[in-house]
């Protein structure tokens, strides 16, 4: 590719970078530094003993161990289920394939709280599974209740991250010439040998990088574990939340956050290394890489994968809707009506309608902030071909790897005193959400900006356009669509954001995920039903945003 970098004075680049850099410094570096400071020096003096105390604490060690092994198990499980799915969606042609490919991405962007609620509904004692068992076996039927089990957490993690594996591995698979696998078959390799000896090594970069991403996401899993886990089923994220909100032990929370940061940075470094090994050129010849399934075995394989998608991905969401209509004695719209009136205002602290309004308002503000910050950063990174661009590029990806809870916790302890005193400010919520959405904005805009042929800009300039006009006439129309995609993505992320929001949202200004979490924490069928109704609503908002993006066909949601 010819360099799309626009030779611009370094001064201009720095001016463009000023806003993103300041944003990162105040809202990311400063909070994280404060956490590290508090963790290493709880009383103001450097005291490594605090970290040591935390590390040797048996309960912390068991949390760390649980975090590690559930993340490893989730990653392995997601790969085992996702790789066949990747083959089915990238190698086999069938009706509805494109729609399905977009559909499997929806869970990935669903709010964790929604997913938690959905699995609570699916795996609880009143789930359709148990209803079916009772119908089949009568009163002797065992009641399957997976709530507060590791199994539930693992299933929810697979649900979330299926798309990461399917899209990343499938993306590479569709670049591999199928004749390479056929050549192995003709040379005497069985199906399994051909997969192990040929496909697997060729797919290794994609498998490794998707595994790193899934590990990262499940290691820092918060909402799902908070809702589905129980005693002894807490990740570091949940423990940080508990230490802050229940134990009020900020040094402990900080030490846990430092521990987690170390693990996350290590995982990110591994990921960065794997990314560099990924092949960039296509391996495909002229042959089509997709074909209809042939033979009984392949049709069975495809059906099996479609069943996985249906059971794993669709059923929790359907059960969510079903539960939202369950009033305790039959079906009805009572839960939905209750959402829209404020008769339960005392329980929610605010009427549910206000939570919806808060979410939309915060989400829109966060989208605006993320677009400005991410847009400026992407423009600066495009204009500068050198090291500075790479630093900006990488720097803005870091918040993606840092957990939401760390960001929320950092806001809580860093931004409540001079020099930055935003204590209680409603602005904290959209800022935290924007911080989490900005890497996605940059990831969406950067490739498009880089792909603009620099000669287009030169041609416009030679024809008499001022630099400002060039940007408006050339860059903007091309980037417009990508900006729309970035906006939709940011909005979906902001509206569903839970980990950071739960720390910084004021009690009287809850967002939808926060309201759902509060409802789930209260007893009673009505509260549960309302939580389901609001989860359904939230799911509809995010799913709409994501499916709209997929229509625009820019960017690869959930592909790493």
């Amino acid at each position: 590719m010819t360099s799309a970098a626009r030779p611009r004075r370094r001064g201009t680049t720095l001016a463009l970078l000023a806003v993103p850099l300041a944003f990162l410094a105040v809202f990311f570096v400063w909070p994280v530094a404060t956490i590290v400071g508090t963790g290493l020096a709880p009383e103001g003096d450097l005291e490594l003993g605090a970290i040591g105390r935390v590390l040797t604490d048996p309960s912390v060690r068991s949390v760390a161990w649980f975090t590690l092994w559930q993340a490893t198990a989730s990653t392995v499980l997601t790969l085992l289920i996702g790789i066949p799915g990747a083959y089915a969606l990238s190698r086999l042609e069938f009706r509805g394939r494109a729609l399905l490919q977009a559909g499997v991405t929806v869970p990935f962007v669903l709010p964790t709280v929604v997913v938690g609620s959905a699995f609570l509904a699916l795996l609880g004692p009143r789930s359709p599974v148990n209803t079916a068992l009772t119908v089949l076996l009568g009163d002797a039927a065992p009641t399957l209740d997976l709530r507060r089990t590791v199994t539930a957490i693992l299933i929810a993690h697979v649900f979330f991250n299926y798309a990461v594996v399917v899209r990343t591995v499938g993306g590479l698979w569709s670049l591999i010439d199928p004749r390479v696998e056929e050549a192995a078959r003709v040379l005497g390799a069985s199906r399994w040998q051909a997969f192990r000896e040929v496909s697997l090594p060729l797919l290794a970069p994609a498998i490794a990088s998707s595994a790193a991403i899934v590990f990262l996401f499940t290691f820092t899993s918060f909402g799902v574990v908070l809702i589905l886990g129980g005693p002894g089923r807490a990740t570091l994220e949940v423990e940080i939340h508990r230490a802050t909100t229940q134990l009020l032990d900020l040094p402990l929370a900080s030490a846990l956050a430092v521990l987690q940061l170390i693990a996350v940075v290590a995982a990110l470094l591994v990921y960065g290394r794997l990314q560099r090994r990924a092949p960039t050129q296509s391996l495909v010849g002229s042959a089509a890489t997709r074909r209809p399934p042939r033979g009984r075995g392949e049709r069975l394989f495809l059906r099996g994968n479609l069943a996985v998608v249906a059971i794993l991905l669709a059923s929790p969401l359907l059960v969510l809707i079903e539960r939202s209509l369950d009033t305790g004695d039959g079906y009805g719209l009572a839960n939905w009506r209750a959402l829209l009136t404020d008769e339960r205002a005392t329980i929610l602290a605010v009427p549910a309608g206000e939570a919806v309004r808060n979410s939309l308002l915060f989400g829109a503000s966060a989208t605006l902030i993320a677009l400005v910050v991410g847009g400026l950063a992407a423009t600066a990174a495009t204009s500068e071909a050198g090291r500075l661009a790479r630093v900006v590029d990488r720097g803005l990806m870091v918040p993606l790897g840092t957990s939401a809870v760390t960001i929320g916790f950092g806001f809580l302890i860093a931004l409540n005193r001079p020099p930055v005193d935003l204590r209680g400010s409603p602005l904290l919520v959209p800022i935290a959400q924007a911080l989490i959405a900005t890497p996605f904005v940059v990831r969406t805009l950067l490739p498009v900006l880089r792909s603009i042929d620099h000669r287009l800009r030169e041609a416009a300039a030679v024809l008499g356009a001022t630099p400002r006009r060039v940007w408006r006439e050339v860059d903007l129309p091309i980037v417009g669509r990508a900006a729309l995609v970035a906006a939709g993505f940011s909005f979906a992320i902001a509206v569903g954001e839970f980990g950071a929001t739960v720390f910084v949202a004021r009690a009287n200004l809850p967002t939808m995920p926060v309201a759902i979490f509060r409802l789930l924490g209260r007893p009673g069928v009505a509260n549960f039903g309302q939580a389901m109704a609001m989860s359904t609503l939230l799911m509809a908002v995010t799913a709409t945003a994501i499916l709209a993006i997929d229509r625009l066909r820019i960017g690869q949601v959930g592909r790493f």
Partner: protein
Amino acid sequence: MAQSTGARLAVDGLTVAYGPVVAVRELELAAEPGEVLAVLGPSGCGKSTLLRAVAGLEPPLAGTIHLDDRSLEGLRPDQRDVGLMFQEHALFPHRTVADNVAFGPRMRGHDRATVRRLVADALALVDLSELADRGITELSGGERQRVALARAVAPRPRLLMLDEPLGSIDRALQQRLLDDLRSVFDRLGTTVLHVTHDQQEALAVADRVAVMRDARLEQLGTPDQLWRAPRTAFVADFLGLDHVADARIRAGRASTPWGELDLPDAPDGEHQVVLLPDALRVTDPDRPRRDTEVALEGRVTARRFAGDHVRVTVAVPDAPQLTVPVWAGRVPELDDELELALDPQAVRVLEPEPDATP
């Protein structure tokens, strides 16, 4: 490399379809042990599908495939003991040259010493022993082609199939590789099915050529038989014989745009006829027209230099124009009037074309 005994390939009534598209229709074809059979046809005629069906990569709708007395029906690709060299080669990009070639022998469960020997033999056969430890991405197009050939022959299959083996290689190199290919076939002694769309390639390497068209076999014969007696206008056109015209034949006399020709054995009726390459020549005082030849008067409208000869295009009144090679002596100028001699013995009557739509 030791001679391996080739198997007899028999394809009977083979039909292969992709959904509603029939790629191979009721095909009958047999290759004798050790024979090099070329399958020639334009792209989309079903020739690659034939190979894939024999290899077990496409399930047939109907028909049988036999290697000697063994039916291949229901056998997986890895159970068929055939070699296939893919179009664009499909080499394993993550393995070295030697590892690519070793794959087949390894899959057949040979011990390490045998694998090493088979690899060494195959690499020597294609003259690539020096590049054994290279990565695939470091090879040139011609080298890749040879690796693909070595990989296909290393397990000593009793039937070797090649799908456009020279397709992705530039013209100049093709000529040399063509000679190499034929000598490799001769040394192997295995039965070969060689698929190509290039008539020169087919005529150069094959003992017999099967011309395919629209999923069907159009003609099967030795290169000489095809060249001397193309069965249909399609075959004639595919071989580069472009002097085809309508003729009305009655009692051994054909009236054609180029005049009345004596074709004693031709059947009566409306037919197409084709002039073979040696049917036409420019007459000159040293080689006057013989009595059996028909005279044609024409004017030179184009000349094209073709290395050792010049191709002269001559417009004959009320008839399709003719192109004649002039090898030596006086090359006519543009607009020169000249006399051509047409030898009716080098004129063939073609069978009627089947309906164009399959």
